[in-house]
């Protein structure tokens, strides 16, 4: 049984090597054993860094600290066994090939005896709702076949199996569909109630956690302490009213079926994408939203059916290229369609934020001065102007997504396809992102987003629900 663990910070400060400003400074707060805390603050303020520090995985090779940060009255790295960390990306949290071995990994490292390990592995998998009556997961299930939500619960099981007294969750639901979010929150709630352990959770959408949390610790934009409150804030997002005028059809599909190499083909409902509108694609993880986005974006060939390119979008293309965007040369594509992927890191191809945004303008031969102006205005709009010389990989999750968005939109393409634009955004940057989507539409682009975000769905013009279907033919 775990014993709840407290946290004590006294004037603590952390500075990454090679950075001029500290990531976190003047942090003084305490978390009593058994408290359930929401750690909040603007995108990029150092929340994840603080969580890593508490988990004892910020090494002296990464930077230096001053002041005191105590977990259970000791140094965090000495108390690794006391803390369990679950991160955002399900893929980098699976260690072993089989479910049972993965959960056992932590117990092995802490020298728990085999018999006791397997008892705990089963108990942990039952606690997180993966294994038990009517559930299909067993100890021998391959971890690769689990869904994102199941992988996150697997990571949680792998952590609670060594019975930590402090659970640290860094946006554990950010990459999940609504059912995945419900399952993960339910699993955490059950675990926290069963063990009584202390909980610190970061989530840009704290609503699902509301029942569980007892307190909020907020950081400000510079990495200092903004406020502490025992009252849970009610979050409202400023909605942009959808009063846009639909224009010509930019692209439409007929009986389209999409698929990736080596994966099943999924047929999708017919789409009509008009200039000046935002269309949302919804559906559970695995319903083909991302595959459809890549196909509309001219990156995957359609498996069957037709993509019909509107006259304005196809203007200037050679006749043999017109039929489907995947035939277009890259330079013709970047002028006409902007794509933003689900994982923005995968799409960065330049060493600085500034050149990343300017790339589309350079390859399409936009005048140098005009390009620089446009880049600067986009960066300011997204709150990234101060980071113009930074490497894209060093940004926070929410900043990366905004960077990917403006990089794809900077050429003002007729169609912009964005996979999950509001992941990882706080309330302010959420408004920035939605404002940019609205501006793009008003400037005459057809905007397509995939999303689970109910606030975003409230401001789009059209919603298309995808469900996993096999083509009829």
């Amino acid at each position, binding site marked *: 049984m775990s014993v709840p663990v407290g946290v004590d910070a006294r004037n603590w400060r952390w500075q990454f090597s090679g950075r001029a400003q500290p990531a976190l400074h003047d942090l003084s707060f305490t978390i009593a054993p058994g408290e359930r805390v929401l750690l909040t603050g603007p995108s990029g303020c150092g929340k994840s860094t603080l969580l890593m520090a508490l988990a004892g995985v910020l090494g002296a090779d990464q930077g230096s600290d001053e002041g005191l940060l105590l977990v259970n009255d000791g140094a965090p790295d000495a108390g690794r066994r006391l803390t369990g960390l679950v991160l955002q990306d399900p893929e980098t949290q*699976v260690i072993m090939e089989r479910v049972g071995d993965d959960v056992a990994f932590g117990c092995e*490292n802490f*020298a728990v005896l085999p018999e006791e390990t397997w008892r705990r592995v089963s108990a942990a998998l039952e606690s997180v709702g993966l294994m038990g009556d009517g559930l299909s997961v067993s100890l021998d299930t391959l971890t690769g076949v689990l869904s994102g939500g199941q992988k996150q619960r697997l990571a949680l099981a792998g952590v609670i199996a060594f019975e930590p007294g402090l659970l640290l969750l860094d946006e554990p639901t950010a990459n999940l569909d609504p059912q995945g979010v419900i399952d993960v929150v339910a699993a955490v709630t059950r675990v926290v109630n069963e063990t009584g352990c202390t909980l610190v959770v970061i989530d840009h959408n704290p609503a699902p956690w509301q029942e569980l949390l007892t307190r909020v610790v907020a950081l400000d934009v510079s990495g200092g302490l903004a406020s502490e409150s025992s009252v849970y804030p009610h979050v409202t997002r400023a909605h942009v009213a959808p009063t846009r005028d639909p224009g010509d059809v930019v692209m439409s599909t007929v009986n389209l079926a999409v698929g990736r190499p080596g994966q099943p083909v999924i047929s999708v409902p017919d789409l009509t994408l008009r200039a000046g509108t935002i269309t949302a694609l919804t559906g559970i993880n695995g319903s083909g939203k991302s595959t459809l986005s890549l196909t509309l974006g001219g990156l995957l060939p359609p498996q069957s059916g037709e993509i019909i390119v509107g006259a304005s979008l196809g203007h200037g293309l050679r006749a043999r290229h017109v039929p489907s965007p995947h035939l277009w040369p890259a330079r013709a594509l970047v002028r006409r369609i902007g794509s933003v992927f689900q994982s923005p890191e995968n799409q960065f191809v330049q060493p600085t934020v500034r050149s990343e945004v300017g790339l589309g303008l350079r390859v399409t031969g936009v005048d140098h001065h005009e390009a620089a102006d446009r880049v600067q205005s986009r960066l300011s709009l997204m709150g990234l102007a101060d980071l113009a010389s930074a490497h894209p990989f060093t940004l926070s999750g929410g900043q990366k997504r905004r960077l990917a968005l403006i990089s794809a939109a900077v050429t003002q393409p007729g169609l912009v396809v964005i996979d999950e634009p509001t992941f990882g955004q706080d309330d302010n940057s959420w408004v920035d992102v939605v404002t940019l989507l609205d501006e793009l539409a008003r400037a005459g682009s057809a905007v397509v987003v995939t999303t689970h975000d109910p606030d975003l769905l409230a401001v789009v013009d059209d919603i298309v629900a995808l469900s996993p279907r096999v083509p009829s033919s």
Partner: protein
Amino acid sequence: MNPLAPIVASSIVGLVVLVSFDPVSVSVALVCEVLTLPWLRLPAQRMWPIVGIVGVSAVLGAMGTALYGRPSGETLFAWGPINVTTGSLDLAVLVGLRIVAIALPGALVFAATNLTSLADALTQIARLPSRFVAGALSSLRMMSLLADDWRTMGYARRARGLASRSPQQFAGQSFALFVRAVRRGSALATTMEARGFGGNNERSWARVSVWRTRDGLIVAGGFVIAALVVGISVGTGSWQVVVFG
């Protein structure tokens, strides 16, 4: 069956074939290998691709020897540096068979091995350091993720207007994949470290890797086959050792 047993057994046979250089020893080894392969219980659809790859390499190796090998005996065909003789043809067949006899068992045994049990055996029985073995194990699992990353990066470069198929693009994308791999690796390392991996503490093993009599017999079987290879070859007077240089 302990995963180390077939690996050790096939290595013993492989070593003998590697040292020998005559048609009798390689044939005896091949016959014994084919007869013992069913014990691996490798499904046919996983076995045939491996057999195919080894087969193609053997044919390529043999062709090289046939065309450019040391000429001896009657000349059958000559054109520029190419000189096919009866001697180089004999040599080519031998080289091809040797490639199959050495590579096939190793590749098939590795394919039939569960990597997790192999890692358990390497740490608990072969006593290799667990940090090294667990690190290698988790990085192997990451290979499939990198294949997906490569594809996505290709999409990204095209979407950003960069997709020509020039060597620079390939180099750029390779470097990006390398960066990506390092980043994924360090994220995974953080996960592992947060779960207590890499400390100096004592470690336990949830899956106990045991070495049974049967495993000893499998290794003994490897020695028996090796002895048969040498014995029959020496007995028929054809035994020859490979000459390097």
